[in-house]
């Protein structure tokens, strides 16, 4: 029985991490046109399990993309400096969409396994009936 709760716990940790990633992708996309916005990324790391066992996944600190912000020429913009440029955001929509697809795929895989573990434990419980 502990195997199944282990199994469920692992799947939940995976889903939580992927949901966090998806949330940051949504933040990035919604701020794609915010001047001076830096793209947020999150790292995944292994969580310490109970009693020295290997744990599930957990999302680490949120980091900002350090790449240069693009300088956009628009003299009419309120934030434009003397040369008529302002700093845009370094969000690339193509990358964000690809990232969200990958997160979704992993999330679904974890959900499938969660469902499978639940079915297995309920069929085990069926043995007790009758």
């Amino acid at each position, binding site marked *: 029985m502990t195997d199944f709760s282990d199994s469920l716990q692992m799947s939940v940790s995976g889903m939580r991490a992927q949901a966090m990633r998806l949330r940051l992708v949504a933040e990035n996309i919604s701020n794609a046109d915010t001047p001076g916005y830096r793209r947020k990324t999150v790292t995944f790391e292994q969580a310490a399990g109970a009693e020295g066992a290997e744990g599930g*996944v957990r999302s680490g600190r949120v980091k900002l993309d350090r790449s240069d912000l693009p300088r956009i020429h628009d003299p009419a913009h309120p934030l434009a400096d003397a040369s008529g440029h302002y700093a845009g955001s370094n969000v690339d929509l193509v990358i964000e969409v690809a990232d969200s697809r990958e997160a979704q795929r992993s999330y679904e895989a974890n959900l499938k*396994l969660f469902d499978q573990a639940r079915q297995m434990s309920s069929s085990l419980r069926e043995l007790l009936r009758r």
Partner: protein
Amino acid sequence: MFDTLNVFHTAQMMATHAGTRHAVVSRNMAHADTPGYRPADLSPFHEVAAQSAGAMRATRPGHLGGAQTRLPEPEPRADVVTDPNGNAVSLEAEMLTAVEAKRAHDRALSIYRSAMEIMRQSIGRR
């Protein structure tokens, strides 16, 4: 059959093995995007069963001279392709192993149930 009840023991081992294997696969799947993670797997049940077949078994801590039947530890998967970030989890392979584990579990439960049915019939209850 009725003096040792090996069927029940084997079915129980098989179900436990399938459950543990499923937990290992779940961990691999949760780490599908963790950099540097190496997936693990249990050896298939028939290998475990072949090792313990014929040998004396200790089914209680007090039994002397019999080897305790225990499940193998998860070992790193051998035939993996590593991504540039050091992660070697393949979603397809994990899915396949998960389905294998689920089917083994179902099979073990069916065996257990049918053996139980035979026992019930033999004592005249249905």
